[in-house]
């Protein structure tokens, strides 16, 4: 039951089993996809990277696979969307609540948020995914957008 995720997840911006070496690279790759698809302004990628440096979004999760949820101010967004990347190798993000600590991440949701209240369902669903270690590890094994959507729909 992840309806809002399924609705907002863009086929162009689901990158699976990819190889990146830094948080910046991941945000750039996902953000550029959302830009090319018309969901965010050109300023989004730079703003999201800058924000990640100052206010990081790495989240250590219960199942041993960790996640990050980069996002930025609503002014850089044209319409709400979600990008997602599963990473072949762990990429370090900084811990949201303890920025001096590194979190090795394999699942990234890039959030393009337009208004806080309008996206509350999607945000709650993303938190629901993060709180479900089985679902997190299932997502990492999928090789196509279709499989990812089916996994969310079946969760």
């Amino acid at each position, binding site marked *: 039951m992840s309806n809002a995720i399924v609705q907002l997840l863009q086929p162009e911006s689901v990158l699976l089993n990819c190889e990146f070496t830094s948080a910046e690279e991941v945000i750039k790759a996902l953000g550029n996809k959302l830009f090319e698809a018309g969901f965010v302004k050109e300023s989004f990628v730079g703003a999201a990277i800058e*924000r990640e440096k*100052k*206010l990081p*979004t790495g*989240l*250590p*999760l*219960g199942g041993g696979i960790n996640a990050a*949820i980069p*996002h*930025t*101010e*609503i002014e850089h967004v044209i319409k709400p969307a979600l990008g997602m990347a599963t990473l072949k190798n762990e990429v370090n993000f900084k811990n*949201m*609540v*303890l*920025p001096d600590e590194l979190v090795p991440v394999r699942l990234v949701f890039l*959030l393009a*948020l337009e*208004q*806080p*209240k309008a*996206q*509350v369902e999607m*945000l*709650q669903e*993303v*938190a629901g995914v*993060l*709180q479900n270690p089985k679902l997190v590890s299932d997502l990492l094994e999928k090789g196509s957008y279709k499989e990812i959507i089916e996994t969310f729909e079946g969760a």
Partner: protein
Amino acid sequence: MDTPKRILVACGTAIATSTVVAKAIEEALKAKNINVTIRQCKAAEVKSLVGDADLVVTTTPVPSDLGVPVIQTLAFLTGIGREAVIEQIVEALKDK
């Protein structure tokens, strides 16, 4: 009903994680019959808004000298330690 307790929920941009946290706290405390009003803000705004709050719950670092209890937690995002944090919030609001 008692006067609602006032909780300031902070995160980086006041749009993403604080939305999830605010909603989760509201529901958890409602289930315990604790009446709260929740305001979301950016971490950078906490200092100027804390005067109206009984408690600050934040997912990003905030100054420590705020004069009210501060709970820094990712529990409402990751689920880890969630019940313990809810107890901590209930406890912090007790004498307010």
